């Protein structure tokens, strides 16, 4: 493979060498089962505790026991929503979420509607992807038991007003879950200050390993476990623990905290340069999501008219650039991304979306290369589009 320019850090990230180093001993040397009482087991158990404390610190939880390790960010979302909903069925069966949540949240809510008789309100968003707090308040009913709104959107980078949502939820004694999978490593997360009850994380988005996630569960929050079996994770998530994976998550969390200020500054600069340059050099393009502080530092999202996303990606790939799109062809369904459609875009426009997402390792030179090559790719595709008259 010749030189690659990776601009899809929101999809997944490479494992940081330091993280790999931290994990390595736990594959062969320190391979014990943490439930075992002999040396190998106790060693593994201690490693879990350390990792738990590092994840705790990343989100400033009060106690490391508030962290449940899971097998993915998706599982954390499923556990939070099903677990809280089923635990609170005695109080009501209404859930509030938004239309731009990740499928791990949306499809979980739909599962509860379809199979367990819950009712779900899907809040609309404005053209920048923000929910309206007044609409949220109006959607609250006496039987509302859970609000789940993501901290930051994976496609368009919109940051929701989490503190205010937590406050509103608290006033009505409603649990508040937030999917912070994309926010972690990009923003400071402080569960005590924000007052959320449940928060999902995923290791592979912050240069940690794939196949490990975590759910923060504030002390006292009722949660019905969704994985039955052994007594692991204080009986809240059965399964022999993925020790190397969890150790890697801990290390990745530690690095994420350390690197945040510098990374943030760098990526905001790159982000704004990409946005400015593209809006300047390419016609008939739309920026998806807000500008400034309400946008994730590492996310850029455009819709280019008259062309289709997969074709953009394949052309970029041929040039060594990896990026993503919410076009139907890449979403695994017939429709383009539900996030794009929620912004009020037509199908045609939504098909032409391109997400550029950056990470810790992104360099100026990579951004240069992207900006040099993107305009001609767009033009090439427009030239072969029957919709483009230019």
């Amino acid at each position, binding site marked *: 493979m010749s030189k690659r320019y990776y601009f899809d850090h929101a999809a997944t990230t490479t494992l940081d060498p330091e993280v790999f180093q931290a994990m390595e001993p736990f594959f062969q040397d320190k391979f014990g089962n943490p439930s075992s009482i002999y040396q190998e087991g106790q060693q593994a158990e201690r490693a879990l505790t350390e990792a738990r404390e590092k994840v705790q610190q990343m989100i400033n939880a009060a106690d490391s026991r508030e962290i449940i390790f899971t097998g993915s960010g998706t599982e954390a979302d499923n556990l939070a929503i099903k677990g809280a909903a089923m635990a609170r069925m005695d109080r009501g069966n209404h859930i509030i979420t938004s239309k731009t949540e990740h499928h791990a949240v949306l499809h979980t809510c739909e599962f509860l509607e379809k199979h367990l008789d819950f009712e779900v309100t899907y809040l609309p968003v404005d053209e920048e992807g923000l929910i309206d707090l007044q609409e949220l308040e109006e959607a609250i009913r006496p039987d509302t038991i859970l609000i789940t709104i993501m901290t930051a959107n994976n496609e368009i980078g919109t940051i929701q007003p989490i503190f205010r949502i937590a406050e509103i939820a608290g006033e009505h004694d409603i649990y508040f879950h937030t999917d912070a999978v994309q926010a972690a490593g990009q923003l400071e997360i402080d569960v005590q200050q924000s007052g959320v009850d449940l928060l999902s994380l995923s290791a592979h988005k912050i240069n940690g390993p794939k196949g490990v996630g975590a759910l923060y569960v504030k002390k006292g929050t009722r949660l019905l476990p969704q994985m039955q079996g052994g007594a692991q994770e204080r009986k809240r998530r059965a399964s022999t623990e993925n020790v190397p994976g969890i150790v890697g998550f801990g290390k990745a969390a530690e690095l994420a905290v350390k690197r945040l200020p510098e990374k943030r500054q760098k990526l905001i600069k790159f982000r704004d340069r990409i946005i400015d340059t593209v809006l300047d050099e390419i016609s008939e393009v739309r920026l998806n999501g807000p500008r400034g502080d309400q946008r994730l530092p590492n996310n850029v999202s455009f819709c280019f008219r008259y*062309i289709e996303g997969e074709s953009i990606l394949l052309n970029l790939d041929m040039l060594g650039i990896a990026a993503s799109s919410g076009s139907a*062809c890449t979403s695994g369904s017939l429709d383009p991304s539900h996030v794009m459609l929620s912004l009020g875009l037509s199908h045609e426009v939504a098909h032409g979306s391109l997400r550029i997402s950056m990470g810790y390792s992104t360099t100026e030179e990579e951004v240069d290369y992207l900006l040099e090559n993107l305009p001609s790719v767009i033009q090439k595709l427009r030239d*072969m*589009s029957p919709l483009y008259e230019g």
Partner: protein
Amino acid sequence: MYSDKVMDHFQCPRNVGKMKDPDVVGEVGNPTCGDIIRVYLKISDDEIIDDIKFSTFGCGAAVATSSMVTELVKGKPLDEALQVSKDQVAEALDGLPPAKMHCSNLAADAIKNAISNYRQGKTGLEKDDPENKVPHEHH
């Protein structure tokens, strides 16, 4: 995901572009689905496709199948061109991913639409004639 042949046709599409003064055009698909294929034909007096161009809004498969179809029908009599099927196109490209067989393999239909227009004495460029464009239905 895509065969080398598909990627070759995507990377270097044959007969791509818009034709200045075609004898007839055909079109299929719609932007909502994310796939539109338009073909421009020059047809000789003895009903041979003398020249062909295409323009496509769509994914890799849509571009590659368009390119392949133009290769398959160029120089052929209309009746033979009408026989070109989606399966033939996919086969000539060493196969397509299952999800792409239906949605993005529309180029043969565009040819049929063009020929049908031609035989009805239309150019396919008349405004507001619904028959000019074949919308693409999802089953």
